[in-house]
């Protein structure tokens, strides 16, 4: 299949899907190699970079999604007047940061790092669907091990946890120089 046609197909798929759709699923259903899909996604990204396009495609945890561009938001805000969403508290962000870097991790381990009780924060993160129980630790009391959800990556628009790790590392290098 030629790339331009594939780009069109992918555009239609992510448009119809709304929520992020797995590259594996597309690859299996259409019988197209994953690397060809990613290649087409890169071309789509370039296409959407143009000023006359208001939407963009992004990869979130091996899934594709279509959204509007952030720079268009002020205009959307004027016409749709969306309610401001509630942001996460700092305690929640710190807890998530620890879980992302250390998962799977127990509640006690998180508390050791933050130096405070995280019971409430953790349960609110679970209720929001950002964190989930992934397993039990093979230790006395079988403590619960926590990890982040796919939705969590989506919430922060992260391609993967590695993306965050790399970004943090490069920030630190920039700081020390």
């Amino acid at each position, binding site marked *: 299949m030629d790339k331009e046609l594939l780009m069109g197909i992918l555009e239609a798929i992510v448009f119809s899907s709304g929520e992020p759709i797995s590259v594996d699923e597309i690859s299996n259903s259409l019988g197209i190699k994953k690397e060809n899909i990613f290649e087409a996604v890169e071309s789509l990204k370039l296409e959407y970079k143009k000023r006359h396009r208001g939407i963009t495609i992004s990869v979130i945890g091996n899934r594709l999604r279509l*959204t509007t561009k952030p720079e268009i938001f002020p205009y959307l805000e004027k016409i749709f007047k969306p309610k401001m969403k509630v*942001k996460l508290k700092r305690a929640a962000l710190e807890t998530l*940061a620890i879980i992302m870097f250390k998962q799977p991790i127990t509640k006690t381990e998180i508390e050791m790092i933050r130096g405070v009780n995280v019971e409430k924060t953790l349960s609110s993160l679970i209720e929001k669907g950002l964190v989930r129980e992934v397993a039990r630790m093979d230790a006395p009391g079988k403590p619960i091990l926590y990890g982040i959800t796919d939705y969590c990556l989506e919430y922060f628009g992260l391609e993967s946890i590695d993306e965050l790790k790399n970004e943090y590392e490069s920030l630190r290098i920039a700081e020390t120089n």
Partner: protein
Amino acid sequence: MKTLINVKLEAFEGPLDLLLHLIERNKINVYDIPISEITEQYLSCLEDLENLDIDTASQFLLMASTLLSIKSKMLLPQAKKNDEAQMEISTAFDEDPRAELVEKLIEYKKYKEIAILLREKEEKEMLLMKKEPEDFSTFWEDEIILPKISVRDIVKIYLSILRENKNKKSLEVKVNLKDSVPLKEKIKQVYKELLKKKNVKFTDLFNKSCSRIEVIVTFLALLELFKLGKVDIIQENPFDEILIFLKLGRENLWTKNS
């Protein structure tokens, strides 16, 4: 360094956060904390401790005691380095009493910074508009397509129902038993009908507008007849019509028909 500190404890995410704040404020090298000054400043910050809940307050106090314990260890005389025999023993004590705390501070600082990074991502993400999935259900008229529902959705719906129902009194259920036919009568009725027709559909045994209790009684009557070996009941698939066949002696009309 003796500047008075006026901070609100609530603004901090715990003792480590407060300590980091003091260290940054005084432009101190984390690896060489002047423990006695920092302890003094830390303690002076604890004045509005009583405004916090007991859980948080105790965490701030725990750190205060850790600081004081480090301070006292630092005051102890150091082992003499030139004494060969003492060298080995002293290495165990040589470790800086601040080391563990420093390690903790540095690790906490890392996640504090990542949290800031996450905040930026969160804010940027909020500027993106997403679209609901297309509704394809019209393409498969005969099939029931369940939308993609995650556990998260179910929890959300469940919580919202709980919230809504909190204020409402539980729905009253009225059961009117007056008009229902006694089970004995119903059994006779059904059997008579069967003798006449040999086989009937379950839904034909009562009229559409009858009460729920009548449907139940009819069903019970059927079960009773089945137990007595008078009928065969067949339902091929879930939610299909229930078919009832009259058993004549040992013969079974169903097997005869098929």
